[in-house]
């Protein structure tokens, strides 16, 4: 897969922030099924899904709301235990959430009583690192997301976009092998979202960690990802696995290129047929 070649080159750059993700971040999802509820009320959120995500790859899980994409992400994060099947990260079975898998939520996930600096240093702090080390890690990541000026502010004093940058920095401050993002830009306005996407790609190109990014926005998925996984609704499963052959660095103007449009059309058709199916099922 040509995608992997690109991501390997990226790892050399990861050194700049001391990223240790070179070779780490291999995510294997094996026959995962997730059911919620019991007996007749049981709902199948994810059905027998298998995926192999090589280290350093940027993957988007794309699908309509309620298709189980967040559930699948939560299995990798360790919040949801699969009813059947296993999730492996670097060969180890996921049992609970852990600092090797950084998580970025949609919004309001920063600790409001901690300054931006202390939010970012939270991971190193609970890991028992010394004050000086925490502070130097915080400085590194404050600089990375361009928020050094706001180090001593509280989250509520920052805009939504800035808060999400802090959320990304906080997750990366643990040097995770995988970064899990659950519609992180969903609550932002279109302009901010575009800036955040470019910003995220820049950070990723320097960091080289594996990213699993959940979104329902087709443009966002194609713009960001090496690979787009389209998910179907109830029961959730991956129905299309599309490589994104667009060159990097990705530029905003690519969103109108023929290649991009072709991919978008493919994704939209898949999603549309799936949404219709889901719609009809709800009607019954």
């Amino acid at each position, binding site marked *: 897969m040509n995608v992997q070649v690109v991501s390997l080159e990226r790892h050399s750059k990861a050194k700049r922030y001391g990223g240790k993700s070179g070779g780490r971040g291999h995510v294997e999802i094996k026959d995962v099924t997730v059911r919620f509820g019991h007996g007749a009320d049981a709902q199948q959120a994810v059905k027998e899904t298998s995926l192999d995500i090589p280290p350093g790859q940027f993957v988007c899980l794309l699908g309509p709301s309620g298709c189980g994409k967040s559930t699948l992400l939560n299995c990798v*994060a*360790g*919040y949801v235990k699969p009813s059947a099947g296993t999730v492996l990260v670097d060969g180890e079975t996921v049992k*609970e*959430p*852990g*600092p090797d*898998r*950084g*998580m970025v*939520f949609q919004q*309001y*996930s*920063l*600790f*409001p*009583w*901690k300054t931006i600096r202390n939010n970012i240093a*939270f*991971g190193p702090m*609970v*890991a028992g690192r010394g004050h000086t080390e925490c502070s130097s890690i915080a400085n590194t990541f404050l600089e990375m997301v361009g928020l050094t000026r706001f180090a001593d*502010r*509280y989250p*509520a*004093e920052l805009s939504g976009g800035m808060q999400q940058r802090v959320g990304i920095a*906080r*997750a990366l401050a*643990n040097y995770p092998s995988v970064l899990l993002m659950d519609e992180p830009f969903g609550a932002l306005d279109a302009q901010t979202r575009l800036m955040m996407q470019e910003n995220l790609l820049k950070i990723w190109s320097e960091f080289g960690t594996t990213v699993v990014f959940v979104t329902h926005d087709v443009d966002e998925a194609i713009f960001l990802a090496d690979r787009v996984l389209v998910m179907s609704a109830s029961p959730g499963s991956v129905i299309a696995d599309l490589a994104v052959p667009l060159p990097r660095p990705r530029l905003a103007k690519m969103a109108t290129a023929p290649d991009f449009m072709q991919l978008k059309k493919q994704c939209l058709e898949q999603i549309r047929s799936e949404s219709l199916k889901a719609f009809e099922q709800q009607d019954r």
Partner: protein
Amino acid sequence: MAISLGALLAGLVLWHLVTLYKLDFYIDFENVPSPVRVGSSFLAHLATQDFYIHIGVSMQRIMTGYLLAAVLGITAGVVMARSRIARAAIYPYIEILRPIPAVAWIPLAILMWPTEESSIIYITFLGALFPIVLNTLHGVEQTPEVLVRAARSLGASRLQILWHVVLPAALPSIAAGLAIGMGVSWFSLLAGEIISGQYGIGYFTWNAYSLINYPDIVVGMLVIGGLGTLSTYAVRLFMRPFLAWQRRAR
């Protein structure tokens, strides 16, 4: 500010007038002391040592009972919010005991506790306990789930989550409980002091009535009001640094 001062001044003048003319219109002002007599009585007391002993004894009882209630109340609230078993075991007691006013406890407290002092402190403690427990419980339950999940994914242990996430999230509610608890604590203390004890500002007030020293009744009342307000303010002041992040948010 000017309006408030003016209103207070008007009230003072009205008080002066009704006592001056000994107004007796359903409410009898015949024996109500005038503001001037209360003021001079207050000034006279400021020069005596006894007056400070009364205040000191009351403050000490408040401090002891209230601090015990704060420690035990916050602990119980957190434990109940975090453990279903503890909640099922403790909550019924709170439901049964909470509606019983402090005054109703006095006879039993005197019988139960070895000294009068300890029974008064017990009543003070009880008054502060319930608002603190319930507000802590409520506050801990309000902790946003996403913050707990974020902390878990960042590698925090259960204890670290409690200390760095759950307690700070509950703190605004705990602070409210502490402030309310302080008010109820004074209320309960006074009830205890009026009925038993040889010292304390509640005893001072009730004693003034027994001795037909009417200005002192009002002196006692005003001192109680002042101390109650001051101590509630002190609680808020103490909690302030911990809630700095909240004010910034606005």
